[in-house]
């Protein structure tokens, strides 16, 4: 097996809320690997800790109120990111690990040209001259498929559409040829047609540059199209982890099941297609008060006494060893997989 590029072990990122109403355990013991060159999808509803996980990797959590607990471990290219000093960390940000954000409309600085902003990482990390940085910016704009890059390089963000701005964000992220690209909901703010273009672009650049992508999204359709493996998060924890094909064919965690069932499908069996679109009842609980036992039990159709009392560990679900893991007691008692009345 190849050595992972990024190794996240037992990551815990907590936020101390104001007025002392408690500690929000936004990310609570997350473990996963990203292999070189692969795309790992992280899926989950709003509030389940996806974004905090990605920000924790780059140590961009605002401190205070947030802090990453000792005992957490994030290893990238053989170094623990959590023990690096600020200088070493800056040398990695934007250079070895880059990030693109959800909102292309607000993630660009309104007072600088897009060329300046693309060139910034190159100037910071590779000390290139302004002239070289400019031609690099033009080259990146061409790479991400912006027409007339020689002209566009001098444009300001407000002169561009949302889709073009997201392309600029990608150009900014990739200017230093990072090994890992973290894409946090890269298409959520875009039209569906533009979404497909942006995802194709990320796929193509990934193949060209040989980088790994950590794709964070709430959209299972995006995961199905782009990811090699999927991590499903719920309430600050990983609840299921599997290769994409396995996850879609044989979802084992009730939460994953629910997520898949709530995707509208054209190719579903007639019985279901005619029925109502299913949804998971309830909402993700507040991060200051995760439920006792299994954190999903209040919303789970199969929950029984054990789920309310004991928190399940990540259990191996068979198949190829170490590929499919599920945090659910059903694995120890599969006969209960029929909803109680």
């Amino acid at each position, binding site marked *: 097996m190849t050595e992972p590029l990024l190794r996240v072990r037992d990551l815990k990122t907590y936020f101390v809320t104001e007025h002392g109403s408690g500690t929000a355990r936004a990310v609570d013991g997350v473990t996963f690997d990203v292999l070189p060159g692969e795309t790992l999808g992280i899926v989950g509803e709003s509030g389940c800790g996806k974004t905090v996980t990605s920000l924790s990797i780059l140590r961009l959590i605002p401190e205070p109120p947030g802090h990453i607990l000792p005992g957490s471990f994030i290893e990238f290219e053989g170094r623990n990111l959590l023990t690096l000093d600020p200088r070493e960390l800056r040398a990695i940000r934007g250079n070895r690990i880059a990030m693109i954000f959800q909102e292309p409309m607000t993630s660009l600085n309104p007072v600088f040209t897009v060329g300046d902003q693309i060139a910034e*990482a190159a100037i*910071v990390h590779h000390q290139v001259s302004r002239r070289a940085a400019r031609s690099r910016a033009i080259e990146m704009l061409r790479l991400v498929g912006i027409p007339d890059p020689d002209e566009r390089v001098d444009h300001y963000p407000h002169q561009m559409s949302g889709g073009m701005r997201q392309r600029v964000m990608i150009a900014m992220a990739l200017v230093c040829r990072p090994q890992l690209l973290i894409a946090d909901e890269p298409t959520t703010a875009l039209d569906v047609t533009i979404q497909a273009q942006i995802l194709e672009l990320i796929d193509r650049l990934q193949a060209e540059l040989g980088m790994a992508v950590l794709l964070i999204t709430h959209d299972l359709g995006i995961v199905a199209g782009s990811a090699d493996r999927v991590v499903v998060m719920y309430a600050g924890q990983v609840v299921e982890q599997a290769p994409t094909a396995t996850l879609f064919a044989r979802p084992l965690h009730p939460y994953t099941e629910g997520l898949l069932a709530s995707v509208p499908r054209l190719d579903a069996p007639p019985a279901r297609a005619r029925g109502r679109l299913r949804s998971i009842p309830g909402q993700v609980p507040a991060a200051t008060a995760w439920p006792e036992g299994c954190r999903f039990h209040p919303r789970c159709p199969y929950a029984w006494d054990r789920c309310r009392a004991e928190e399940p560990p990540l259990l191996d679900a068979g198949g190829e060893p170490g590929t499919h893991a599920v945090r659910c007691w059903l694995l120890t008692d599969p006969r209960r997989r029929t909803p109680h009345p």
Partner: protein
Amino acid sequence: MNVGNWLALGGAAIVALAAVAALRRRITATASGRRFFRHPTAVPGLFVLAFFVTIAIAAPVVAPYPPYFQIDITNPDLPPSTQFLLGTDPYSRDVWSRLVYGARVSLGIGAVAMLVAATIGTAVGAVAGYFRRWVDTALMRLVDVGLAMPRIFVLLMAVALWEHIALWVLVLLIGLTGWFGTSRLVRAEVLSLRERDFVAAARAAGAGSGRVIFRHVLPNAAGPIIVSAALGIGNMMLLEAGLSFLGLGVPPPAPSWGNMIADGWHKMTVAWWASTFPGLAISLVVMAFNALGDALRDALDPRRAGEEGGEGGGAA
């Protein structure tokens, strides 16, 4: 006043008008420029400032006499005439000439003091707002103390302690006691800007704190800083005038508008012109700066940015 002086004065007025017109042509290309010129006091304010700056620069041509020159000490307090445009003062010096040279001193002190104040205020505000926590607390308590101190009293103390104070020290003192308001304003801007997405994006790209502050945060806070500086210059000039009037500012015989008022005020009843005209000059320039500041506030207010959306967003 000879013909050359009159011509120079007319020339100065034309230069000032031309400067305003040129600026207008240039910046009405942008939406905020149009908002600036839509303000009713923008053009008169700009003209007054451009005029005083021009005559200050061209002082040797515009002024018929050197500023210290006593024309006829046995015959002072001559009323305004074609020879002495604004009359002569109790020391028989041409008030117009002194007013022109005094513009150099008064405007210069205002501008430099404001530059000092704006620089310190911006730096302190940016550091406090960006790093927050104990840095913020410490700096802002210092600012509270600064704002609570009666400024004129502090300056009087300092001036009184040194006796013969050099002009640059005075300027520095005025600047050093005038940055507190600016720092609060900048801190508030930075506090909100640092939470913006593009700041997070810059940090994710590996930019350090200095780079984030100077390239990403402060340029976006430029509007309020410029407005407060424009409004502040007037205050700085009033402060200088006040100190000079009390005899503790610009040392005579160097002319500043403040000490010109002081020179003439005890003879107000017989020679009103000696202190009235410098007083008018101060009022006019301070009003002009306030008008400019108001217009700039309208032009640079981010909440008005929506008004430029129509022509700004030429999206593809």
